[in-house]
């Protein structure tokens, strides 16, 4: 029984190793703010959200599968949260009653595991009831398949078989073992047998039974004998005890899988609720294949900034369709970094099947996303800052595949403008030729203007707006890079 709400054909793996660039992504995109909102203080939800957001999907069908399931969740949040409650309750019960119950003796394992099975069966009945009541209301392929499976696999006959086993496993009629003679004529290969009931094969039994039966009864004070007999019994039920315990584990794992597969959507519900409270809207993005160059949106805002400010923030409208390169220049503190972050966040959210923080959004998917931000000087670092920057760049280049996307934020500025520009120009030119999509926030005038003049690639130039009085709108507009864009304000403020 597979849950399959995250992927159409496989389980969601919350432990899958993430690419090495995730540390940079988390830091540069302020991802923890997003993940914490999804988690609402729940560590499990946080980990699942982190894993899901950072393991992007690359197939349009896979993303749409999740988008559909998420739409169902957004329409029926109460039912989904009810289902999510089932594995939570199982977990709580286990914590309460089965901590350390599994002893080192088969007898103890058997009785503990048998009772655990009874508890699980109760919860499975709840799941079955929810499926019976609400299956019809769900539209996504994922949920329809899931409910159909529950209704089919957990029917009344099945529950009856389970109850019979749970009764028989108490062994009221004694334990029947078969055995062979092993080395030294010691009993070997003990196998627990199911007693041939009188209503079965009785004719066979009459003809088959020729064996005499020998028996003895322990002396009441023969403690060593009682212990020996107990050991023999344990040997006989060892396997079935393990099987029952494993069966309990199977159900436990099924419920854990259910929890894992739902946790991401619960996180999405939490996020949607928080954004609704501060008045921000979200939308399901439209997808384009990796080979295309699409990036157009209205009202795209930095979701992490909005969550931090607990209020609406400025959004941007941009049409960068058919562009390989977007160069962002302009005033300090004019919203360039915020904009760059909103691009990265929207890309990650889109590619894990989430809604995006925009009124409308369409972009091509990319195989991987990298960020290259200028870093604070690290005291422990022996290499110089420029050296360090280039070393990180080199690591990114190692991991690049065509159609990937890189967000540069004031990169290669740790040297003079001319050298930095030349390095940046050479790197970006090469990247574009290798079909890498680039967003580049920069103060390097020679670099930015050089690209503008030479028409390298299909570039879009955005500028942080500054009004005549020096105030900033935090909105970006198209415009060629200006040489006086940076530092001037700062200069006057300081040298005033």
């Amino acid at each position, binding site marked *: *029984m*597979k849950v399959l709400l995250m992927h159409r054909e496989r*389980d969601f793996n919350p432990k899958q190793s993430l690419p090495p660039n995730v540390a940079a992504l988390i830091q540069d995109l302020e991802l923890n703010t997003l993940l914490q909102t999804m988690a609402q203080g729940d560590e499990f939800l946080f980990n699942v959200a982190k894993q899901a957001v950072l393991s992007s999907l690359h197939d349009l069908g896979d993303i749409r599968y999740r988008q559909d399931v998420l739409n169902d969740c957004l329409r029926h949040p109460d039912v989904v949260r009810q289902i999510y409650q089932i594995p939570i309750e199982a977990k709580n019960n286990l914590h309460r009653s089965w901590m350390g119950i*599994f002893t*080192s003796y*088969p007898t103890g*394992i058997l009785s503990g*595991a048998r009772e655990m099975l009874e508890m699980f069966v109760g919860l499975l009945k709840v799941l079955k009831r929810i499926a019976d009541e609400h299956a019809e209301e769900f539209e996504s392929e994922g949920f329809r398949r899931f409910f159909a499976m529950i209704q089919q696999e957990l029917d009344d006959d099945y529950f009856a078989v*389970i109850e019979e*086993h749970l009764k028989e496993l108490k062994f009221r009629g*004694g*334990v*029947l073992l*078969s*055995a*062979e*003679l092993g*080395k*030294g*004529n*010691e*009993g070997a290969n003990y*196998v*627990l*047998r*199911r*007693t*041939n009931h009188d209503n079965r094969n009785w004719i066979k*039994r009459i003809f*088959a*039974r020729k*064996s*005499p*039966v*020998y*028996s*003895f*009864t*322990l002396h009441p004070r023969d403690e*060593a004998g009682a212990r*020996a007999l107990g050991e*023999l*019994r*344990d*040997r*006989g039920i*060892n*396997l*079935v005890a*393990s*099987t029952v*315990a*494993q*069966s309990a*584990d*199977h*159900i436990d*794992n*099924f419920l854990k*899988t259910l929890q894992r597969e739902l946790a991401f959507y619960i996180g999405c519900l939490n996020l949607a609720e928080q954004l609704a409270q501060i008045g921000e809207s979200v939308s399901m993005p439209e997808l384009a294949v990796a080979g295309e160059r699409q990036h157009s949106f209205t009202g795209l805002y930095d979701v992490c900034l909005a969550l931090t400010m607990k209020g609406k923030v400025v959004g941007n409208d941009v049409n960068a369709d058919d562009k390989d390169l977007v160069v962002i220049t302009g005033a300090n503190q004019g919203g360039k970094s915020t904009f760059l972050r909103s691009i990265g966040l929207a890309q990650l959210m889109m590619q894990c099947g989430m809604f995006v923080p925009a009124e409308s959004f369409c972009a091509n998917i990319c195989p991987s996303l990298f960020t290259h931000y200028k870093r604070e000087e690290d005291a422990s670092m022996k290499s110089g800052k420029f050296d360090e920057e280039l070393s990180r760049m080199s690591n990114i280049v190692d991991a690049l595949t065509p159609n990937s996307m890189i967000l540069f934020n004031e990169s290669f500025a740790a040297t003079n403008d001319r050298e930095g520009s030349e390095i940046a120009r050479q790197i970006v030119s090469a990247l574009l030729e290798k079909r890498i999509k680039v967003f580049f926030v920069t103060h390097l005038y020679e670099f930015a203007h050089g690209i503008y003049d030479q028409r390298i690639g299909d570039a879009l130039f955005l500028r942080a707006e500054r009004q005549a009085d020096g105030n900033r709108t935090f909105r970006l507009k198209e415009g060629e890079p200006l040489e006086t864009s940076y530092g001037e304000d700062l200069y006057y403020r300081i040298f005033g």
Partner: protein
Amino acid sequence: MLGKDMTFHSILSVGKNEDTKAETLEAPIFFVDLNLDQVIDAITASRQDYDLKPFFYTPLRDAEIIRYRHEVMRDLEDDRLMGYVKAFAEKMIRVRRYLALAEKSDFDYHKKGWFLEAALVYCEAVTNLAHDLSLADLKSRGFLALREYVTDYSHSRRFQTLKAEAQKVRGNLSEVRYCVIIQEGTVKVRKYEGEADYSPEVEKTFEKFKQGVVKDYRVKLPEVSGMNHIEAQILNFVAKLYPEQFAALHQFCAQHDRFVDETIRTFDREIQFYVAYLEHIRSIKQAGLAFCYPQIATMNKDVYGYESFDIALAWKRINGNAPIVCNDFYLQEPERILIVSGPNQGGKTTFARTFGQLHYLASLGCPVPGRQARLFLFDQIFTHFEKEEDIRNLRGKLEDDLMRIHDILSRATPNSLLILNEVFASTTLKDAVFLSKEIMTQVTTLDLLCVWVTFIDEIASFSEKTVSMVSTVLPENPAVRTFKIIRRPADGLAYALSIAEKHRLTYQRIKERIQL
């Protein structure tokens, strides 16, 4: 290859020579000084049951037997043959274990069950050994004779009967199936009647929830062989259910009372001498160190060892992943005595031990540490090592030293080996020089092969028989030891000063550092 007597007696020794069968129970007295006690302990540690130490305590005096052992050792260096021998040994261990179980048991059917099991494993061991040896490419006189013996034995009527009967009795017992019903202190035993296995039914019922592999909850119930009175009682009932099978067992045990062949038993123990040694040096070889089969010198005393090393130290070092320094030595006519001097902790004692170890291991017929070696077949080894704890009593110590050396020189013959390490270190320099020269004269007269570790430069160039060797340091940093001992005149360089310099403890530096 065609010896006069090809009949197999022992894998350790050619022919039926009773002298070479002697086993020494006490470790030779020089073992501790040469750290050979550690070496032999390590070699025999995992094979206590074979009682191998007496073999390692008995040096050979006959170069012919050393060659016999070299041949066997070389054959056994082949991994395939080693595998065969180990497989045989493992089976023989099981034979002994099963016989012990039979011996120990209080219940007749149980005893006989284990006796039968031991016989079965023994037959397998012998049959496999005969078969394996027939495939092996053997060159040594020892293994060739063994092959002939084992082949004959395994085809003998005595052995074939044992094997056939054991298998038949076991086969019948294996077919016995019975049921035990346990309820509230009562046990019933009857034949098995085709009842279904219950666990798979349970498993099938819950399989649909399976998400992946889960833990195996089967308790590791102790699989100790043995039987309690409940099991014995059940076994008695089983014997009643299947009387013919158990009657056959009785008969088998009565007819094959002592089934292990004496020569096979001896081989099983003796071959472990080689296996143990080869196992031991294998891990040292893996660390990149070489072993070689030495030439054995009986007439002249030219000896050498290239890339030799202390086998005890190597064993410790490779377990700690530390490097080992190899050293070369040679003595050419008329040289007899290696005088080793140089800085402390520079590997002088290790070098002296190496010289002794190589000779001793060669006398056992074993490969020795080094790339190439020629070693003298000594009659006795004498060692005298300075011991720190003895410095307490100077007067008594010096006296003891002299007594001991006197004793050694009175017992030594021109074929003996002498290793002296920092003797007379606890007396005045003048005394030490005097005594050393006196002793040196006697050693020279006796024509002993000798290694002498000393701080007294004066004796390094005593005569044409002495060769000076020096422990060395890195020229650019004299505080760093190389542990290389090389032929060089003892130069008495002021190593101590350089070390003081490094620690800024020279006169000048201490004056500079202490400023008021």
